[in-house]
């Protein structure tokens, strides 16, 4: 059969690399063909999600940040300073987390979706026009965020002016000063040329962009066991591939940026400098518990337990 798989990024960005590996694995181990639809070809993020729910698409890659509109608990990934910065801990968390292996699959299943994999895309970095070291430096700085209440809350707690803006206007908005900054993983800052219109990259260490691959559940359950295993194995293989691919991806992206724009600065905040930012996390957690749906508390608690396990 031909299986259709849509994702939110371009073919050469992290989700695209993951998708290509998945396609390669499936096609190598079965008679099925996987057709890939990168960002924009079948609509916005929530459009492709609905198409996966209605069975037009067999697979969809959507970040929990967007899934939050459907599964409020998924917004937990926007709580700052929750995910560890250490890469090994992070990977161990994504491999073993009970939140990901037990709770989220149930929540996704209620929406007719089979959660196949959650994986990290890279450390989120803030790019701005003026250097940032303290929350005071963010005062009156208009930081573009996705339209998501938790993200708005995070940046408000950091002291900035969160400004939701359509992605298409971000480059122009930075160029002209409608906004003063935005956040994204390094590879995305590089591929979308965000460094051209900002001067400073700050690593607050507050988050790692998380995303997820899922299948239409009816489709998945209608497959024989062999096919299901092919899919699971392909999702796992793509996970390993993406983790390996990400080793050094951030560094390469930052190097490319520095080559293109030598006077760009990249500042990694020290633990002390991070402390005042980290203190605001409690407020955002409280907001998450308010708007994160019926199982918010359970998700947050389990997630913290998983993270502790990953750290030990």
């Amino acid at each position, binding site marked *: 059969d031909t299986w259709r798989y849509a994702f939110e990024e371009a073919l050469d960005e992290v989700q695209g690399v993951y998708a290509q590996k998945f396609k390669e694995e499936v096609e190598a181990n079965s008679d099925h063909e996987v057709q890939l639809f990168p960002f924009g070809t079948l609509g916005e993020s929530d*459009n492709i999600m609905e198409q996966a729910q209605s*069975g037009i698409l067999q697979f969809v890659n959507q970040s929990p940040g967007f899934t939050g509109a459907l599964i409020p608990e998924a917004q937990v990934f926007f709580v700052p300073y929750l995910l560890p910065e250490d890469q090994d801990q992070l990977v161990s968390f994504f491999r073993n987390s009970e939140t990901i292996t037990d709770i989220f699959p149930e929540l996704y299943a209620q929406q007719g979706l089979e959660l196949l994999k959650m994986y990290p895309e890279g450390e989120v970095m803030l790019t701005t026009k003026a250097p940032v070291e303290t929350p005071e430096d963010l005062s009156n700085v208009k930081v573009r965020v996705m339209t998501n209440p938790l993200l708005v809350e995070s940046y408000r707690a950091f002291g900035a002016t969160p400004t939701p803006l359509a992605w298409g206007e971000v480059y*122009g908005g930075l160029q002209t000063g409608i906004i003063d900054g935005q956040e994204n993983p390094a590879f995305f800052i590089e591929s979308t040329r965000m460094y051209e219109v900002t001067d400073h990259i700050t690593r607050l260490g507050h988050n790692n962009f998380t995303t997820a691959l899922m299948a239409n559940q009816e489709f998945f359950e209608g497959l024989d066991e062999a096919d299901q295993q092919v899919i699971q194995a392909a999702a796992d293989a793509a996970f390993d591939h993406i983790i390996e691919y990400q080793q050094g991806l951030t560094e390469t992206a930052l190097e490319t940026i520095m080559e293109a724009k030598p006077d760009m600065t990249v500042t990694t905040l020290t633990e002390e400098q991070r402390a005042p930012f980290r203190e605001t996390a409690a407020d955002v957690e409280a907001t998450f518990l308010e708007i994160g749906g019926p199982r918010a508390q359970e998700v947050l608690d389990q997630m913290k337990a998983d993270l502790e396990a990953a750290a030990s």
Partner: protein
Amino acid sequence: MTAAILGTMIVLLLLGFPMMVPLIIGSMVGFVGLFGGLGQLETLVQQVVAGIQPSSLIAVPMFIFAAEIMTRGQSAERLINLVMAFLGHIKGGLAISTAGACTMFGAVSGSTQATVVAVGGPLRPRLLKAGYSDRFTLALIINASDIAFLIPPSIGMIIYGVVSGTSISELFLAGIGPGLLILLLFSIYSYIYAVRHNVPTEPAATWPERFRAMRRAIWPLGFPAIIIGGIYGGIFSPTEAAAACVLYAMLLEMVIFREVTPRQLYATAKSTGLITAVVFILVGAGAAFSYVISFAQIPQEILGGIGIDAMGPYGVLFTISIAFFIGCMFVDPIVVILILVPIFAPVVQATGLDPVLVGTIVTLQVAIGSATPPFGCDIFTAIAVFRRPYWEVIRGTPPFIIILLSVSVALIFFPQIALFLRDLAISG
């Protein structure tokens, strides 16, 4: 399959169906073909709705609203009079003023058809009285309106920007160069026409009259300041600039000129909503159709067939130009942008062409096509507004179309005509 769908759509269009019908039927047939039945038509509806939701599209009703308020009030007329006071007396001056007035009004209006009405309405009798032939006058009006489509704001550029994911602010800047170049070339042609046909020169306005015209036009000149200054001065996004224009137009016409009453404002809002709806249902239906196109991977099929991969950037730009020009000779420009932009998107990306340059060329081409027989929409606007027969409206157009097409060729070989302002803004 593709050919059958496209054929059906063109036939329905020519038979006089509302334009949304061929688009919806085309998408429906596509959905049924792709998914083997009616089961997935919900996704068609989803795509129609998704097609009208990008927040940048809000700028379209806002710019229409601002221009409608101004046309109803005094601003449009004051801008026209300003141009006339300075250019009216030179050889071919009235015709040059018409092109100039289209440029001025273009800084408010985002559409060619609104410009045909707002500028063509008051100026056509004056041109006729001055001794310009009707066919020259009509051709001048429908073609000079293209300048308004290139000078920001431009509805074509907004929709191109939304469909292709290109920055609308950058597109706006890139339209100014070609817009002014067309103004220059039309002025030269008007001058030559006036000399050859010995059109008498108008009396010159006196300096006091000119000052008066300037003083009267000061307020309306705030619009370009809001759009250009506001967007590039870091105050507004294009959408917000559009809303600021609405606020400014209301301030001018309701408070300062006291020309528009609240009741008229309501009527204007209603008519803006109506225009928005008839355009946006096409945008939505077009989005559903372009979904079918990308789902069925049709661009690869068509473009592979003509061997576009081997063409190189010039070949691609020429192919794009020709496709959009021909498309707009038959169909509404917005529909053409909606259908063709996704088809060409992969090849534009693969060739590494600047999407802002492509957007400028596309905008120019659809503007030209909209005044080109047989079915350019500006022709029908002119027929409708000026109540002149079809043949009379199109007879004078060839010289103008040749000028416009040469600007378009110039853009392909000298992209800096469009891009220098944008590059200036980025480096500055």
